[in-house]
């Protein structure tokens, strides 16, 4: 079930929250757990067992870690937990990729498994790992209540697309949380804004990208190629951050406070900054559980560069089982290493706008690698962007630019903190007019966005059949 669907908005959402608010205190976790299982099972009736398996395995490991705390066995238990989690993740996500690689390298023809990827597996395995590692390190208390732990793993708002919530971030709230009118109101507004990002911006930009990526890269003009990759950049940002907003918003409605996942990444003045603003919960997971344990920046420059390389290769491959994702990770590793070596210093001397342009360029090239499954396809697309097709601007680009200009401008504005700052300025303004405008807007804008989003969701299924087509 996706959030941006009639089914979710007008069946699951009202029913779930009605029950959730009606039932008292401790029962809320039962509702949340069962609701989440239903939510997941709707699309994945079989894989829900896998998720429950993960839950029980990590719960047990947590209990064992507690029992053997300080003893040698603890390390083995932690290792067992990490191995099981990674095995589950690798088996379902990377098995065919590995088989294909082996086949290519050795000329063998091992059969592919063709397992469908369990939704959200990359997210919830990372969450459960954070739990056992933190319990081992003594940074989180063990969870003795299986239901509370189950709620943590299966919670539907962030189950499918994050943010990756570390156990200790929600530890306290798992058994005690307050929901009041203010948090419901804030959560609902956040939810509506996220929905609008997804339905009104991401989906529309996605249409443009589908159009451009469907063209022959050896023929498109440079302008068309740039329009296409900008569209993709906006699509992936609004899709992902919109989903995070919806998750965070619903988290608030439940009484949780999930970590932020995006912080206007496209205004970054360096790639280092970009990764502090993009998919923050993943970045911080890798920093905490891979980069720092590897020594981070405390073991000399060379070791730091190596650590960056390792972390971003993993980041790349985490996004999908394909060479292009690995390359995408390496591309960022390269930029980050150069920034550590000298580029970062250089950029800090230059005007900020240079850094922003440089970052956007690196990120856009990254998106080409990310979006194009084959390396040859990626290379062709980059060549088109460089004008190697011999055509810089053509009718097509003019037409598409004209069609999507307004959406581009809205997307651009929505990628900056400007709308937020405007709202803040109005709120703090001393004039009655400004405050009135703010009060009015903060209520009506989310509601209006929700209505238009619903129209977008319903329209997506518009399917006129034209019998007199001929």
């Amino acid at each position, binding site marked *: 079930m996706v959030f941006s669907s009639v089914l979710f908005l007008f069946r699951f959402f009202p029913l779930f929250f009605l029950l959730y608010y009606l039932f008292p205190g401790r029962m809320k976790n039962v509702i949340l757990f069962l609701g989440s299982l239903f939510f997941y099972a709707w699309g994945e009736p079989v894989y829900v067992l896998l998720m429950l398996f993960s839950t029980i395995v990590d719960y047990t490991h947590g209990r064992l870690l507690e029992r053997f705390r300080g003893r040698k066995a603890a390390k083995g238990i932690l290792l067992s937990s990490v191995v099981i989690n990674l095995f589950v993740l690798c088996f379902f996500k990377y098995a065919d990729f590995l088989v294909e690689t082996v086949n290519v390298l050795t000329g063998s023809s091992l059969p592919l498994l063709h397992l469908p990827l369990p939704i959200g597996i990359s997210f919830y395995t990372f969450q459960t790992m954070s739990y056992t590692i933190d319990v081992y390190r003594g940074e989180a208390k063990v969870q003795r209540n299986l239901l509370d732990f189950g709620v943590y793993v299966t919670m539907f708002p962030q189950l499918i697309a994050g943010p990756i919530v570390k156990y200790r971030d929600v530890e306290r709230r798992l058994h005690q949380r307050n929901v009041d009118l203010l948090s*419901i109101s804030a959560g609902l507004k956040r939810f509506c804004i996220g929905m609008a990002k997804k339905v009104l911006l991401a989906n529309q930009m996605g249409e443009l990208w589908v159009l451009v990526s469907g063209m022959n890269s050896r023929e498109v003009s440079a302008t068309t190629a740039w329009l296409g990759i900008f569209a993709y950049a906006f699509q992936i940002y609004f899709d992902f951050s919109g989903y995070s907003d919806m998750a965070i918003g619903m988290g608030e409605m439940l009484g949780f406070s999930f970590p932020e996942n995006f912080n206007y990444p496209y205004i970054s003045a360096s790639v280092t900054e970009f990764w502090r603003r993009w998919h923050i919960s993943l970045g911080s997971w890798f920093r905490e559980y891979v980069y720092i344990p590897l020594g981070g920046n405390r073991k000399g420059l060379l070791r730091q560069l190596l650590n960056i390389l390792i972390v971003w290769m993993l980041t790349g491959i985490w996004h999908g089982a394909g060479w292009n994702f690995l390359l995408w990770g390496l591309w960022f590793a390269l930029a980050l290493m150069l920034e550590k070596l000298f580029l970062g210093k250089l950029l800090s001397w230059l005007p900020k706008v240079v850094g922003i342009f440089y970052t956007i360029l690196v990120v856009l090239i990254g998106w080409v690698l990310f979006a194009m499954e084959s390396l040859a396809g990626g290379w062709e697309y980059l060549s088109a962007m460089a004008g190697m097709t011999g055509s810089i601007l053509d009718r097509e680009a003019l037409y598409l630019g004209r069609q999507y200009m307004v959406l581009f401008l809205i997307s651009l504005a929505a990628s900056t903190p400007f709308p937020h700052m405007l709202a803040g300025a109005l709120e703090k303004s001393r004039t009655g007019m400004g405050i009135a405008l703010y009060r009015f807007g903060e209520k009506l804008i989310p509601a209006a966005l929700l209505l*238009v989003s619903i129209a977008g969701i319903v329209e997506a299924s*518009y399917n*006129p059949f034209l*019998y007199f*087509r001929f």
Partner: protein
Amino acid sequence: MGEKRNALVTVSLILGIILMLTIGDFISEDRLFSETENRILASKPAFSAEALFGGDYTEKFETYVTDQFVSRDKWIRIKTYTDVILQKQEINGVYLGADGYLLEQHLPKNYTVAQETKKIDLLEVLVERWNAMVMLVPTADNILTDKMPAYAPYYDETRLLSQVEERIGEERCVDVYTMLEEHAGEEIYYRTDHHWTSLGAYYGYLAWAEAMGIPAEGYGKEGLETVTKDFLGTLHSKVNLEMQGEPIQYFPATVSRPMTVTYDLRNTSDSCYEKSHLDTKNKYAFFLDDNHAFVEIDTEYHNGKVLFVIKDSYANCFVPLLIPHYEKIYVMDLRYFNGKLFEFMEKYEPEEGMDVLVLYNCIHFLEEFVYL
């Protein structure tokens, strides 16, 4: 305190929207059929354990809920208007042109040289065997270029037409393109439909008569009579914007003498126009009773001449104009015919031979022209 009140208003507003729509959705009855989309909507799937674990129950249920969502048509319209506000000029494969014209989009990449060649090969065989005349009508996007959105891509049909001319010879081709281009300022295409109007067909007829080297009947622009003023065609269905209906006209002179029209060898009628369709959505079906595999028209013009037309729906409003020139007109729509075309034609060919006319719009020719 003020903060709390604010929150209460926000919560009631947003939850109110969701709850009201949920309740409204439960109250509203399921529809079997959507007029706007002209299709049967999904109905509630039967629940069973197999359906659930077999995998398609949840999917079907989701389609059902979405198809039956309360005020579905209104939501779709809201979305379309948002697109218009966002300055989009293309919706569902239809260009929103100037002066209220909707024009069907034909992207150049969808029509390849290979496809053109394949169809022309097929056409060439037919022309050689039957000495047929070929009339390929350009679509609105090629002729009403000033109505098209700026820089809007379209498949250039002159590429096809010049190839056809080259292969089968100029004398076998009716140059409709030039004729329509000359009259591009007139109402030769519908605003809400992908067909040409009776006036457009009339200019096509003039081009045909010229190519045949025979004098044209003087139908004249003033000979047109309006039969309905609220036609909303297929392109309107695709974009679903609020639009005014437009007239459908015909030439009463074409039915000045009695005739017998036989549809699919079964049903006969005394006119090539069927007024009953004017009360339905599909008003263009007024011409030749919509699409039939095979239509025979027996006229009262006893000149012994026979015409065999192989056509698409563009011909429906055109064929009646030919009535004064033939004693018998056979009309064949290849989409509904599975037999061997030449054998079939031979059965209907009189001793002294017959004229054969191939009439398609360029796009339908590329997409649909095929025979055994």
